[in-house]
């Protein structure tokens, strides 16, 4: 009876392996070569690229910024997404309208919306400062002051991906069983206590899954940085993927960029595994 089990798994697994195995192995191989703009060849320089990246302060700086940006945006997206899902859960005028509206940003093409956002943040002819000035306030250097530029990029990421959290969490909330709530009401628990005692623990599984997936995707942040700031001012918004892009496709140092990517992949897999473990422990502790 169980002999058929391979029929389920293998088609997908084999197709994926077939598509991905060559690019993956090739990337690892290239990372040990000096493939560069002036010599497209697979020579062997052993760990030369890896030695170089250990001393590459820009790479590690970018990785640090990426961590802050990814964790920061995902946490904010989670909190906002949860709040929004709760807001449109119960009775509400035009509930369908708001639910659809809150989903829309996720549906848009990041590379194109980033261009729109860049015009929104434009400091002399963009609408944000225009509105501030209409109110008699000073314009804000959205993209030309390091901390603000960092925050602006985060804001766009939050705009784009909060709907992802919103959707998953709302779907989870809709399907929560009613009984625990009745019990809580009989106990005389207020809304806040009910939330922490009943809703939150019941949402643990979906929360962990949503946060992890978002972390994976957020780590590849690229379009918004590329379009809005090009990693500037200075290196204030330069993240790993953007830096790898610069080295790989702008400079065309493919060997070095491959080494950066492989290192990045290893670091990401390790840290995501740790984060997953930590999240499970946190949420499970909450439950008891």
């Amino acid at each position, binding site marked *: 009876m169980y002999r*058929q*089990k391979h029929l389920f798994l293998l088609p997908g697994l084999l197709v994926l392996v077939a598509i991905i195995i060559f*690019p*993956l192995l090739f990337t690892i191989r290239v990372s040990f070569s000096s493939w560069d703009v002036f010599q497209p060849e697979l020579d062997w320089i052993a760990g030369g690229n890896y030695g170089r990246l250990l001393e590459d302060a820009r790479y590690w700086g970018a990785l640090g910024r990426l961590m802050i940006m990814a964790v920061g945006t995902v946490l904010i997206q989670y909190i906002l997404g949860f709040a929004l899902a709760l807001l449109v859960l119960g009775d509400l005028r035009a509930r369908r309208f708001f639910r659809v509206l809150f989903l*829309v940003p996720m549906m848009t093409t990041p590379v*194109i919306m980033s261009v*729109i956002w860049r015009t929104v943040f434009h400091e002399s*002819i963009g609408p944000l400062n225009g509105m501030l000035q209409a109110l008699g306030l000073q314009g804000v250097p959205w993209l030309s002051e390091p901390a603000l530029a960092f925050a602006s990029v985060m804001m766009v990421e939050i705009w784009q991906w909060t709907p992802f959290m919103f959707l998953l969490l709302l779907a989870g909330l809709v399907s929560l069983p009613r009984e625990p709530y009745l019990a809580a009401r009989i106990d005389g628990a207020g809304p806040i206590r009910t939330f922490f005692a009943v809703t939150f623990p019941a949402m643990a599984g979906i929360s962990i899954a949503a946060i992890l997936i978002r972390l994976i995707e957020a780590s590849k942040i690229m379009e918004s940085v590329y379009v809005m700031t090009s990693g500037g001012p200075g290196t204030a918004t330069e993240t790993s993927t953007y830096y790898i892009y610069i080295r790989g496709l702008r400079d065309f140092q493919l060997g070095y960029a491959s080494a950066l990517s492989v290192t990045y992949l290893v670091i990401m897999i390790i840290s995501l595994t740790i984060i997953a473990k930590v999240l499970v422990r946190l949420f499970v502790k909450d439950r008891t």
Partner: protein
Amino acid sequence: MKTLYLAIKYLAILLWSCFVLFPFLWAVTTSFKTANGVTGGATWIPWLQYKPSLQGWQSLFGGSGGTDISGPYLNSIIVTGSASLISIVMGTLAAYGLSRFTFRAGFIRNADITFFFISQRIMPPIVLAIPFFLLLDQLGLLDTLAGLILVYIALLLPIAVWVMVDFFNNVPRQLDEMAWLDGCTPLTTFYRVILPNSVPGLIVAGMFCLIFGWNDFFFAFTLTFTDTQLLPVAIVALNSSVTPWWSLSASALISVAPLILLAFVVERFLSRGGLAGAVR
């Protein structure tokens, strides 16, 4: 107390709605501007504040200073649609297998296989461009729809597997067991019993596949030359050093349109509670 709560609730919803809508409203008004309208600053109202023009919209349909996006639109639909469909079919099968049976190969277990699927999304696409390029070259699929579909499957299959494994893990095993007692094989069980109960999961997985496929720019960009253009690539062709804000705004609005319909479909299922099991 109750009114205060309601006021805060509506205020919050309204604030977020403004945030969501803001770039779209700005894009709408910008799409009717010309260079002078743009340099005129943060104006919103046509005729009153700036002289409107249809140039931005005309340029999307072969007008001067633009590009014709109808061909790329169709290409995008074909590539995204087929890659999503194939990913969903294979992803659902794989997910069901991973959820119901035990696989073992050396130290590799089910959880490791699932992680392998998901981990495919960790790799930054930048470096994969060159090897994918060489791969498609070997297969003679560079600059073809088929080649793009192949690459997109690699991008979308992990998503389908992720969503569906979670989904099947929450479908009671008793359903399967009852079917087996009735004499069904795993395949017929899957086909007759599980699949009809999986529509919500399929909707979510399908939606994510469509979104990520439709909006991918990078691979559509690097793996084609001139024959096969997808929508984001055609639109970005308008992003010149002298940025034509107007036609970019118009194209942003137009590329979003089909997916907004998708948002309505998803919301329908959501409101009916149909997505209940999809994520639990």
